[in-house]
């Protein structure tokens, strides 16, 4: 069975249409639909863990990445409850704790995969083209400015500042992750595993762009003002991209198993 990318695109455009065409008072419907995506990404992660099992390096890395996705999904659900059901400003809240907690799991999981592809000590600048390093540096500068420097508010309490800045720091780690993933694409050349990592990198890149825009327009976003609320679409596409990568890889592994059984 081949996973259709067009099916994922169709789902994305369907929910995007609801966001764009829907009126502001129906925002809760869109935000409820949004929750499907992080939950779906976590479920595909669980399927990937089942496919690989936990007794090998890939299974363990996927377990860490899925744990990170799980925390992000819990963060999304708690954020949704605070915002839509309890009518409490979700920032800062326990939801932020879950989002921030997700980062180290994902970072460590991806690093373990990177070490599998490059078991010997390796410098990223020796593997990756200069253009990738320059883009990473540019993204780092943007995140440092909007996600760390601008996130600091001298009138806010320490906890608020710490949480706001933690997102920026998490995103800096995400940029390093992207470089790790890029190095894996280089290592796996034109193989199917490279395609898997390309979808993963797209997913994290979308998260990164969404986080940067959110750091700039978080007040407008929290007040459900268009077009700022469309930041959700970037996060949604990020979750979809990760889910597609994980699911497509699982289906491919099952196909390989069938081929072996037919040999």
């Amino acid at each position, binding site marked *: 069975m081949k996973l259709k990318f067009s099916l994922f695109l169709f789902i994305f455009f369907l929910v995007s249409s609801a966001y764009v065409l829907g009126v502001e008072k129906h925002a809760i419907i869109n935000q409820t639909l949004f929750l499907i995506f992080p939950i779906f990404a976590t479920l595909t992660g669980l399927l990937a863990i089942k*496919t*690989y*099992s936990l*007794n*090998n*390096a*890939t*299974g363990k890395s996927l377990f860490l990445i899925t744990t990170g996705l799980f925390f992000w999904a819990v963060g999304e659900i708690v954020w949704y409850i605070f915002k839509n059901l309890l009518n409490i400003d979700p920032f800062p809240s326990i939801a932020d704790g879950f989002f921030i907690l997700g980062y180290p799991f994902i970072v460590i999981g991806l690093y373990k995969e990177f070490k*599998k*592809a490059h078991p010997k000590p390796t410098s990223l600048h020796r593997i990756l083209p200069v253009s990738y390093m320059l883009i990473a540096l540019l993204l780092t500068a943007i995140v440092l400015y909007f996600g760390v420097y601008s996130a600091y508010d001298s009138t806010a309490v320490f906890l608020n500042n710490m949480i706001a800045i933690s997102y920026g720091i998490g995103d800096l780690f995400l940029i390093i992750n992207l470089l790790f993933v890029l190095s894996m694409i280089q*290592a*796996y*050349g*034109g*193989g*199917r*595993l*490279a395609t898997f990592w390309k979808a993963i990198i797209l997913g994290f890149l979308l998260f990164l762009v969404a986080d940067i825009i959110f750091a700039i327009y978080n007040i407008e976003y929290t007040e459900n003002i268009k077009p700022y609320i469309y930041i959700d679409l970037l996060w949604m596409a990020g979750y979809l991209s990760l889910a597609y990568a994980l699911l497509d890889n699982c289906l*491919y*592994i099952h196909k*390989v*198993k069938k*081929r*072996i*059984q037919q*040999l």
Partner: protein
Amino acid sequence: MNTLFQKDIYELFLKYFGRSTAEAYVGLYADKSEDFILLSITELLTEYLGKEKAQEEIDKLKKYL
């Protein structure tokens, strides 16, 4: 068939395709030749890892032959 070769193939499949697929491959050892096994592994790995990385893994395997 060489036990080390078999063990290494299992580890290789475990690493890239997971336990279930690795166990499925073990079933092939009984009635297939080493050449057949090596050819099929090359084909599967090249599709999954790309030519260069697959060759790197195959070269490691050949040490046990």
